[in-house]
Structure formats: structure tokens, C-alpha cells
């Protein structure tokens, strides 16, 4: 078991290394540099001075080595080119919690409501709660975040001046962005939950449980819910990872100082270090959340535990792909 975990962690670093390397060479291969993006009228000497200051005058491979050297010796991702004087990791320390803190609210509320709605819809199939849930899910899937955000912003800050349009720092600033962020997860998880619940309700063991005379709430909690959680956990991983960069539109609509804006704008302004750093963070979160999910499987699904064990015993040493 330990070996399996260690192996997964090793692979995780390998993936991270490869993704960052690819990003590094790709972003440098796009024509234009941070100065072409912003500065008019540039003499050669000025450009050379600029390149020298940020180490862009070196051959690409040397820059690549330097990147890793800096990373391993100082744990730094380098200085931003668009925001001179600030290291990319500073942005991460400072703004990742903002994006994450906002997103986690949206996700937690959204997933909880989505799951409840989904179960409700499944248990009352083809009745009012089901139609209601389907309607909400449909709306949530169809309306893009920016449309919803515009509507919400107009209604709650202009038509009725109940909330500030933009700004950051007070609890009130959370309300509208979180509201916009919950609809997506509600829709996704509701639909998913409904279909898996229906699936499981039809299983033989539920029939067995019912025939044993178990009470309905017990059946739902013990047998249905636990089994439906499996696919939900799988879906949660990318959702959590997506919190960091996924709410860009909402962040920019409400002027929230999160990571999203930096992530998106870095590419246009050719802020190489920022692009690489953000991609690093994003990949790391994603890979890590996948690992957590796989480990969670071990806990909630006995079958996976068994599989890992058997695999270890068998001659083949490949890591099983549980998904």
C-alpha cells in the first residue's frame, strides 16, 4: 500500500516536471516579448538592457536550467515581467487563497445543494421535485457564468442597490460572486447525482435491504448515498483544481483580486515567468487532487483496496488504473 502511494507521488512529480517544461518552451516560442506587448518606440539598446536584466538574453536552454536552479535552490518561480519587483510565488501565496476561498464557498454550497436536489429528484422521479431539479439543472448548464454574473450584478447592484458592484475586503463582497459560482456545481452535481441514484436504487442489494425491512432513510444513507459518492468524488478533483483559475470571469466582473486575472492576462502580456508559474500551480493542484481522490477511493471503496493488494502480489508491477 505504502509503495503504491509513493509510486503515485513519484508519478505526480514527473507529470509536473513535464508539464512545466513543455509550458516553458511553448510560451517562449510565441512571437513577441513583454516589451512588444506594451512599449512603443524601442531602441535596440533599451531592449538589450531589458533582456539582460531579466535574463532573457541567454539561450533558451540556459534560461530553462536557470529556472529549475532557482526553483530548487530558492524555491522561487522567478520575477514577474509585467509586475516587476514581485515574485510569481508571492502572487500565489497572496491571491491563491482569495480565489480558493471564494471558490470553495461556491463549490461547497453548490455541491451540497446539487447532491440534495439530485437525490430528491431521483426519489421523486417524474414528480414536481424532479421537474424542479431538472429545470434548475438545465438553467445552470445553459447560462454561461458571465451572463449570470452580468444579470446578478445588474439586478442586485444597479436595479436594487443592495450590494457593492465591485471591491474586496468585506464579507458582503463575497455574496454575489459566490451566488454566481454555485449555480454551475448545482446543475452538474444535481444531474449526476440523479442518474447515479436512480442507477443504484435499481440494484439488487437495495431490493435486499428493502426486503430485510430496513427503514427508507437508513437505506438511503447507508446504501445509496455511499455508493453514489464514488463518481462524485471523482468529479470533485478537477472542480477543486479548477477553483484557482476557473473563476476568472467572475473575478474580473466583480474586481476580485484573485489569481484568475493574472493567469489569463499573463499570456497576452508575454509575462513568461507568470505563465509558467501559474501553470505550475494549476498542474500541481490538479495532479494533487487526483492523488487525493485515488487515496479516498481506498477509503470508501473496498474493491479498490483489494485490487491494489492483488496487484502487489501479482507479478505485474504496473500501477492499476482505477479510473
Amino acid at each position, binding site marked *: 500500500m505504502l509503495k503504491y502511494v509513493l509510486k503515485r507521488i513519484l508519478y505526480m512529480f514527473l507529470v509536473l516536471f513535464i508539464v512545466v517544461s513543455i509550458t516553458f518552451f511553448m510560451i517562449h516560442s510565441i512571437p513577441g516579448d513583454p516589451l512588444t506587448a506594451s512599449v512603443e518606440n*524601442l531602441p535596440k539598446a*533599451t531592449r538589450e538592457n531589458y533582456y539582460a*536584466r531579466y535574463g532573457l538574453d541567454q539561450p533558451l536552454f540556459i534560461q530553462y536550467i536557470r529556472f529549475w536552479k532557482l526553483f530548487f535552490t530558492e524555491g522561487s518561480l522567478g520575477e514577474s515581467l509585467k509586475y516587476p519587483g514581485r515574485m510569481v510565488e508571492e502572487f500565489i501565496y497572496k491571491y491563491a487563497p482569495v480565489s480558493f476561498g471564494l471558490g470553495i464557498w461556491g463549490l461547497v454550497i453548490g455541491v451540497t445543494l446539487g447532491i440534495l436536489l439530485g437525490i430528491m429528484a431521483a426519489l421523486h422521479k417524474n414528480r414536481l421535485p424532479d421537474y424542479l431539479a431538472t429545470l434548475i439543472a438545465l438553467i445552470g448548464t445553459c447560462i454561461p457564468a458571465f451572463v449570470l454574473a452580468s444579470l446578478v*450584478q445588474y439586478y442586485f*447592484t*444597479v436595479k436594487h442597490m443592495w450590494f457593492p458592484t*465591485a471591491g474586496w475586503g468585506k464579507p458582503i463582497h463575497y455574496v454575489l460572486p459566490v451566488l454566481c459560482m454555485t449555480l454551475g456545481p448545482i446543475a452538474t452535481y444535481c444531474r449526476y447525482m440523479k442518474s447515479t441514484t436512480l442507477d443504484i436504487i435499481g440494484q439488487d442489494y437495495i431490493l435486499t435491504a428493502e426486503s430485510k425491512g430496513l427503514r427508507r432513510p437508513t437505506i438511503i444513507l447507508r446504501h445509496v448515498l455511499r455508493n453514489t459518492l464514488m463518481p462524485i468524488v471523482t468529479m470533485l478533483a478537477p472542480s477543486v483544481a479548477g477553483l484557482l483559475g476557473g473563476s476568472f470571469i467572475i473575478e474580473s466582473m466583480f474586481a476580485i483580486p484573485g489569481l484568475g486575472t493574472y493567469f489569463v492576462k499573463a499570456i497576452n502580456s508575454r509575462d513568461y515567468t507568470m505563465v509558467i508559474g501559474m501553470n505550475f500551480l494549476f498542474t500541481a493542484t490538479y495532479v494533487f487532487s487526483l492523488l487525493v481522490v485515488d487515496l*479516498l477511493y481506498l477509503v470508501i471503496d473496498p474493491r479498490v483496496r483489494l485490487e491494489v493488494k492483488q496487484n502487489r502480489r501479482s507479478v505485474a508491477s504496473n500501477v492499476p488504473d482505477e479510473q
Partner: protein
Amino acid sequence: MKKFLSILLVAIMALSLVACGKTEEPANQGNANTTTEPATTTTTEPAATEPEGIVVNGETIDEHQEINVTLSDEPGTLDEFHNSVAATGTVLANLFTPLVRNMSGVLEGDGAESWEVSEDGLTWTFHLRDNYWQDGTKVTAQDYVYSAQMKLKPETAFPYAGNWYVLKNAEAINNGEMDASELGVTAPDEKTVVIETEYVAPALLNSITFYPQKQDHYEKYGDKYGTEADTMLSCGPFIITDWTHNSSITLEKNDKYWDAEHVYLDKVTLYSIQEQTTAYNMLENGSIDYLGVTDQDYIERFQNMEGLHNTKVEYARTFMWFFNLKDKYFSNPKIRKAIAIAFDRDATVEVLLGGVPRKAAGLYAYVMYEGDYNIREYNGDLIQKMIDENPDAAALLQEGLDEVEPGLKAADWSFKVGFGSTGSSMHQQAEYWQDDLIKKLGVKAIETSFDDYAMAMDNWQTGDFQVACLSWGSNADTAYMLNLFTTGSNAIPCHYDNEEFDALVNKLNKTVDPEERIKLVAEGEKEVVYDQTLVSPISYNCGNIFEYDYVRGVDRTPFGNSGFKTIYTVGRP
């Protein structure tokens, strides 16, 4: 064992969840602490209860003076030496005292009380006034010298160093051939700054802004200077008290500023808003006090709103197509001219751009003056002149094609236009132009390509294009726009490389007399637009500003740099 492990794992998960929950809160809290107080919503102040307040221009101004506006982009850094984001200038103008400030089109001494130019026109002497840094120390001539020297030192890597080459020895210093102390900016005593230029540069104060910088303060923070509000030291009308990155900036009145008596605002909040809809919503609910609106739907909406009025301002920015003279076909002036003539400017301005900008008549916008001469009045409508002289653009194109490649019919010829934007409005415009020009010129096809600005500019500079589209802003120096087309300039890369033209521009750069200068400017513009048609100007950018009726004193002249110094409110509800 198995059970133990799984329990352990669950425990770890649970702990990490708890840990997440915990770290999340203080992190946000930390953020909140630094940002809470200055973040404002709509502030409704009780109307001043009739005691005699301050009277400005015959009006009693509000007791509580505050203004909220948007900032188009997040400043890269407030360190002037390393910044490459245009929006930063808006903030810096309020924090520092330039030697001379353009106040609504008039140059007034700010850091300097007075100045004079030597007879040969090469030496400028500025006499500083008594002004203080925020920490109470005096602003000295040395502070101005330090700032200028830093900008040209190679190791600073100041992105706009090119604009400063007019100073004596500047280029050599920037190339690393001379020490920064040789720069033509010196301080003979604490209250005098002497600036020497390479050549006679009458437009010196119109083209670059001399801000002071306090050396020991700057060095104390090093690379961190300008990254946060508390690393800044101001000497201008305002100080910066909060900077929530990518969200808002708060400025407050600086009581130590020499002219603090005439600074009315106590507080300015600048919101970094990148989403237009958000900005419109903020204007509508009064979170901000004025805003430029270009969206047709919103223009109508705001026109019907009470308490708002509409002002149109013209900028010295020209939207144009330009041609690559290195290209086989576009090396021919007739082909270039044919396209410029056939171009539908009326529909572009009135329909595609919603009537906000003004139709172009030459390279220079209507707001450009040389001395007392308005360039547009002096040089007339060059584009109309071209059109009148060549009513048949298709025939002119065919003539040009025959010269380049005898026998080539326009109907078999196509060309490519590159755009430095990927936005939907650019696509919309391009589609119209494409259809319209194919019809008018009878060419086979017009290809279009859309890249982000940096990528497009890179292609243009390397000469990998035929026709391209951009907008370019001028400074108050009339020679600036013509310098863009000289050999070696990669600004608007037409790749003209013409020695006679270079000589003309060079002469203009060194000419002082406005009578002489206007002639040279007119001649140069005629060459760029009419004779050679290096560019096909389309329109001049304009701002369509909606402002609440209680706002006064915003400097909207094309080169005005008053910042928030002159703004106040009367009767804010």
C-alpha cells in the same frame, strides 16, 4: 493493518480538511485587514448645511470631497523605472511633482517655480520651489537628477529609455558607453536643475516628464519599491494609502504638497475594472463618478439618465491601416493609395464605431497644434484631396498592379490584412472592410488574420505582413508622429527607409520657430499620407464621457496631466 492504515488515512484527510478550513480563514482575514477600511461603496454625504464652505469659481464646494473612478488596467508597478503598463502613469502623476506639469494644455511649473532656456536652445535651467516629501524632507534638485540618471543606466532597463535620448549623452549611457554621471541633467545647487539636450529640442517638456525620486528611500526598498502602497514616498498632490492589487487603489490628499491649498479632494478611489459591463453598472449606481462609454446600447441608456451629462473629448490618437513597403505589391504607391481611397471611413465611423470617433483627414488628429497653428486647418483634408483627385480607385489599383507585374488583373490578385486584436469588434470591422473593399477594388480576395498585439507587432517588425491595422497615440510634440516613419524606427513598421524623409524629420526635430516647424510638419504629413500613402488613416479616437453633474474640474485636454489635482464636487447627493 489494513484497518489501521485506512483509519490513519481518514484521520489525515480529516485533519487536512480541517487545516484547509483553518488556513483559508486567516488568509482571507489577513487580506481583509489590509483592505477593509478604504474599500468604499457609494458614499452618500449629507448635504453641507449652508455654512460658508470653500468657494471655487463662484460655487461653494461640498464639505466632503471625494471622487471614485475606474482605472483601465492594474499598474504593473509604481516604480517608474520598471513599469511598462500605461495605466500606471495615471497614478504616478498624482504622487509626484514633475518639474513642469501640463495643466489643461498649459505648461505650469510644479516642481519648478520657473525655468528658462539658453539662447542656443540647448540648456534648460529650472528653479525649484520649496516642496517636501511625505516624510518631511525637502525635495531637492538631486532627486530629479537621480531619477533621470536611473532611467538611462543600462542596468535599470527602463523600458521607455528611447524617449529620453534627447538628453545629452543619454544614448551613450543607455548603450553602456558612458557613466550615468555624464548625463545632461545636473544639479549645480539644491534648488536648481540644469538640463542639457543633444540637439535643440523645443518640445522637450511636451515629450518627457521629469519626476523626482528620493535615492535613499528608493534604495531602501530596492526591487520591492513600487510593488505595494507602503513602499511609496510621495511629494505630489496625493499620497497612496491603499493598493489592493487588481481591485482598487486609494489616494488621499497630501498636506505637505506645496499647492495643497488648491487640492480639493480628500480621497480618490481608483477601481481596476477590466470588465466594461461592470464599469457601466458602477456608473449607473453611482459607485463611480465618470466614465468613458463607447458601447451604443449604454450610450442611449446613460443619455436618458438624470444627473448625468455627456461630454465628447478628442484624443491625439489615430486609427489607421499601414502598408509594408518591403512587400512586392505594396512597394507601389498607387496600390497603397487605391486602398486608402476606396476605404469606407464614413460607414466605419458612423456605423461600426457607433459615431464616437472622428473621421480622419490626415495623420494628425484635430487636436494637434504647432504653436498657434492647428495642423488640420493648416494642411487641410489630405484624404478627401486624394479621393477627389482619383475618383476611380479600382483603376488606380490596376495601374499599380500593371507596374509591378504587367498583365496581372486585379480580379486575380488578393492581399492580406493583419490585426493586432482578437476581440469580436475587430472581427466585425474587418469583415465589413473585407466585403466593401473587394467590391470597390474588384480584387479576388482579402485575407484577414487576427493575433494578439505582441504577436502581431512581432510579425510587423520583422516585415512579415502586407497591410496591418493599429492605432497610435501622439504626444504634444508635433515631430513625434513623423519620427515613427524614419529609418530604424520600428514603431509603425512601414519599412519606409527614405533618407530624404529622415533629413526632413531631423530638421523638424531641431527647429524652434513655429512658423518653420508647421511647414515641415505639413510637408512630412503630406509625404506620409498623400504622396507616399505609407498609412491610410481611418479615424481619430474620441472619448465619450458620461459624468455626474456634481463633478467639476476634470482636465480632459489631450495632453493634460493635471491628474486629480483640479477636481472637486459641488452638490454631490
